[in-house]
């Protein structure tokens, strides 16, 4: 009896280990810059999310280039020694570890396992820093949908004030 229980327990541990070691194909929702993108073919491993370069670009607008992971003039070089940790080949496809990249660019990530949703927060370069005391820029719509950016108000004093209906 005890042996049976032990065996079942060992098998369970083995199953969990195997399950977490191997990448699983999943359908994932990637929320990046507060925009959600459905990705039909993603891989998940130990809670880390891997995307193909094409899906990376679709979901985040970042591209993998020889000089690093870039979006326009913004480029994050991948540490040379670690490049193979971010980019791997599996079953003839290239996969990029977006979770590891988030760590590299100092970005917090929230994950909902049941709904396979990953939310990527502000990167370090987007956040207010204490070093230059500049007011972070933003662009938001008014009720009519017209966009306004803080940076358009240079040359004026601005009282920025938040409120809410609740």
């Amino acid at each position: 009896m005890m042996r049976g229980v032990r065996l079942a327990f060992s098998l369970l541990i083995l199953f969990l280990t195997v399950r977490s070691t191997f990448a699983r194909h999943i359908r994932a929702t990637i929320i990046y810059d507060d925009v959600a993108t459905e990705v039909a073919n993603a891989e998940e491993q130990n809670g880390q999310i891997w995307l193909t370069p094409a899906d990376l670009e679709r979901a985040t607008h970042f591209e993998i280039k020889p000089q690093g992971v870039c979006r326009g003039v913004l480029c994050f070089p991948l540490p040379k020694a670690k490049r193979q940790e971010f980019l791997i080949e599996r079953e003839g496809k290239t996969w990029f570890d977006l979770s590891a990249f988030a760590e590299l660019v100092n970005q917090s990530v929230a994950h909902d396992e049941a709904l396979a949703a990953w939310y990527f927060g502000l990167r370090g370069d987007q956040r207010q820093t204490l070093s230059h005391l500049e007011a972070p820029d933003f662009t938001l719509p008014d009720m009519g949908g017209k966009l306004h950016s803080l940076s358009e108000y240079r040359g004026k004093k601005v009282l920025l004030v938040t409120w809410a209906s609740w």
Partner: protein
Amino acid sequence: MPGWQAIYQELGTKNLEIISVAQDTNGVKDAGQWITAAHPTYAALIDEKHLVSKLYNMVNVPTGVWINELGKIARPNEVAFVDDRFKTFTGLDSAPYLAGLRDWVEKGDKSSYVMGEDQLRGKMAANDPNFMLASAEFGLGEHLYKAGHLTEAIPHFKEAQRLNPKSWNYKRQAYALSGERDYGTTFAQEVEKAGGSKVYYPAPDLPAGAGKKP
């Protein structure tokens, strides 16, 4: 909002712009009627994703920031009441804050209300990793709520509240989306826990005697 319109009519001609930003997950649906009623001529923006609160590490509303002509912060996050509608709840008088605002509009960087760099750095919240994670959890909760998964959103809202207990935005917005019973508390209880409504909003840290005529 009517209060800001009055201030804008007074100071808008003196190179002050007001940008109000609604921190409502449901955007125009919840905030719209208040904006329409106020007839603002200043910028009244909609911020469904709470981007401004995220960027500036804000924890409650109303929160005001003064930004000078060069785009630098002159006074960081502080409670910003421009009228006394909530005075019986908060115990805060709007007059000293408004006196400061007028002084700044008139004197610019020479105003004693403008903070020096060291004081600013001391006041501004550092990017605490737990707060950053709280912001991501809240953002995920908002996304799930909007995608029709309110039940699944609640644990993420709770996690945001746990990781950044200083944020009233995370509590108040979440309670507004589904009711306080999902959180086992009420806004009134939370205010009491924090020491009561008279300390709920920390008063703006205005310099003693500032703005007075010598």
